[in-house]
């Protein structure tokens, strides 16, 4: 389970568009669980989430709980918002990143609770759920300590 943070958020929690087949994902995230679709036929862990396996075409998909551990694959510091999402228009700087989850997927996210000049590719991060009312979003924080940085060799599997 991931830590849930409700107060003192300096980034918005935009209401996600919730499609009917995705309610289980969002309900879990509201209580701190990041669910990843897992294909029972080919064992693929799917991203972005949907109850369908884009690798083999199967609908025999269940949900597994992500550990929350990841490594920064790439990142940028947006100095001014102007994001596709209007809630970011007047915000900045903030970090947009791809984090490679321990389970395999590289997911788009924000790196939070970090100095914008201190993040690097290969930094170990851990998921945190930001919650504002019913709206939730999963973000990542740098992990402190000795093993905070790993080589990120790259290349899609």
């Amino acid at each position: 389970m991931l830590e849930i943070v409700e107060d003192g958020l300096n980034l918005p929690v935009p209401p996600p568009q919730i499609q009917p087949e995705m309610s289980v994902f969002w309900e879990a995230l509201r209580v701190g669980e990041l669910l990843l679709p897992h294909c029972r036929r080919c064992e693929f862990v799917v991203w972005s989430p949907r109850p369908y396996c884009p690798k083999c075409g199967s609908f025999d998909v269940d949900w597994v709980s992500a550990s929350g551990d990841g490594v920064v694959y790439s990142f940028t510091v947006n100095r001014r918002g102007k994001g596709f999402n209007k809630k970011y228009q007047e915000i900045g700087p903030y970090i947009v990143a791809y984090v490679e989850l321990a389970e395999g997927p590289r997911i788009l996210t924000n790196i939070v609770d970090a100095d914008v000049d201190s993040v690097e590719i290969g930094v170990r991060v851990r998921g945190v759920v930001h919650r504002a009312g019913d709206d939730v979003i999963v973000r990542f924080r740098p992990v402190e300590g000795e093993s905070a940085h790993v080589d990120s060799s790259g290349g899609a599997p």
Partner: protein
Amino acid sequence: MSSKGGAYIVGAYESPDRVIPDRSTAQLTAEVAVAALADAGLTMEDVDGFACTADLDALPLAMSEYLGLRNLRWVDTTMTGGSSPLVQLGHAAAAIVRGQCEVVLITLAQRARSAPGERNRGFNPEGPFEEVYGLNTMGSYALAARRHMYEFGTTSEQLAWVKASASLHAQHNPNAFIQRPITVEEVLDSPMLSDPLHRLDSCVVTDGAGAVVVVSPAVKARLNRVGAKVLGQAETVKGTDLGRVDLTYTGARFTGPRAFEEAGISPSDIDYASIYDSFTITVIETIEDLGFCEKGDGGRFVADGGLLASGRLPVNTDGGGLCNNHPGKGGMMRLIEAVRQVRGETTPAVQVPDCELVLVHGTGGQLGTRMGSSTVILGVEDA
């Protein structure tokens, strides 16, 4: 397909205007359509095929009526972002070879500067997992640039060379949005907007419009006009690899080899290339993927003037999207400069001598997520 039966671009026109507060995209489409047809020696009455890029206020159905196209036997409303006209060119050439139509008009008009409008964000499946994080266009390309730097040692100076080279071409283009030379230092000193990309790593944001006319060999034989033969075209969509995105390459990795194979040539045969240049990183990744250099060597390839008209690979001699014209979607403008080069009709200061084989590559969408990619190869008409 096209290399066997043959299809020719016999008309091309790019609006000279870059800031257009006073006309709609529909009206601009009419202007460039009439002008491109006139360039070919044809009229609206001759057109039996039509392709245009869907825009906020000029949908293809409405546009065919607005233009007065009454003899349509073939239409294409492909939307792959800025690469759409290049995809449509391939579709048009195939339709001409098949005998479905003989005179195809392809248009693009957009007012990204004067009327940027709302992005029409209905539901898209990636929205809840991307847009909610404040991703923006430049940030998306910055993610790719950062990873390319990490894996291959590409530098900000090398990225800046792409802009500087475009500006050295644009100074000879009286219609270019930026007409003064920009130095590498100037790019590096411009504000950092989305690390590692600076403001001047970005294309210009303009209004603009352009059109080309593609015809069959029989129609071309009736015209007293030099044509550019469509020798090869390929298209694909490159996305996030089922959630394991690799930001270091583009769809050109797949479309380049297929277009070269169809044309029966290799990258070393190309005399001039129009490379989609939404941002500086777009060019570096694309020339690697097309095989003009090894993967990872793009930064070294573009440094010290590699892309200049006098360099090892002349690229975007009109100034490109980085300095000349990028009306939100830029593939049409890249195509038109390639037609000018192969017809020997571009600005004399940047005309490549004996220019016989040219390449155009379009990258629509986003380098950081998913893109529509298309590679086109054109040749002098008797190539």
